[in-house]
């Protein structure tokens, strides 16, 4: 189905896409049909900068299994970071 399931968040950082590096201010996280990945539904991430228009994004489509693995890995890395880092 087109799940419509979407979370939007504010982000602070940068991402590199077809036009080079862009400042990232917003994110969309959703589980829906991919454009390119060979699955029925994927966990999709849009790292966005709306000031740059619709093309101001870096898009990632992940299988649900690999997306969960990514979440665990991100959490593990953040938890392992020494305290006090900027």
């Amino acid at each position: 189905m087109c799940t419509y399931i979407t979370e939007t968040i504010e982000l602070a950082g940068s991402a590199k896409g077809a036009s080079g590096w862009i400042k990232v201010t917003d994110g969309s996280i959703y589980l829906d049909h991919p454009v390119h990945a060979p699955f029925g539904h994927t966990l999709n991430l849009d790292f966005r900068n709306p000031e740059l228009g619709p093309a101001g994004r870096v898009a990632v489509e992940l299988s649900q299994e690999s997306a969960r693995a990514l979440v665990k890995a991100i959490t593990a890395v953040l938890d392992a970071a020494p305290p006090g880092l900027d």
Partner: protein
Amino acid sequence: MSDALTAETITITSGNGDEIQAYSVRALDPAPRGGVVVIHHFPGYDDSTKEIARRFAYEGYNAVMPNLYWRQAPGASPDDAAAAARATGGIPDQQLVDDVAGGLAYLKGLPNSNGKVGAIGYCSGGRQSFLAGVSLDLDAAVDCYGAFVTGTVPPNMPLKVTTLVDRTPKLSCPLLGLFGDQDAHPSPAEVDELEEALKAAGKTYEFHRYPDAGHGFFSVDRPGYRVEAATDGWQRIFAFYGQYLSA
């Protein structure tokens, strides 16, 4: 009699007067024929839905697919436009109705129009095809596995989606529904709910349900493709339009 077609990107006037992009596929043969407004799915105004529009023309209809995200992202690539539309909550139902109305007027204005126009949509477009049928004067509507016509919209849904079943009495045309029994949205129970509403309202409808199919069984480029359901479904669609969009 010619089988030549013209397929091109054009501008049409939406029902609210806005100029929007659309993909038009027209038969060059002057013999009168019906028209089909093709409603693209949530991922956007993409290549696969343009291919569907071309198929309708190949089968003898004029077809037009409005770019439903043109206002949100004019000139953007289809995937970027879909992402932008999603991030801002999707498109309002009234905008969809206006854009289908624009497609309808465009098709009726073609020199070889027989004055009859239907709509079809897949996935989110299935719901929107039903929405067009209860909002506009159509001659036929096809709902391919559209979720949230019936059932319950989850709380805190960030997108602008409501159920439509209460508007069933306003359905202006016969409805063809094609569904997979393994689909969760719409589930078989939600399809049952729509069928009961159509019966209660005395509407003409035709439902076909495929036991071995889930959601998106027409999508040849996705793992949900089911050849038997899709082949039968296409035959049902052309039989239905043959009945209701003929002169």
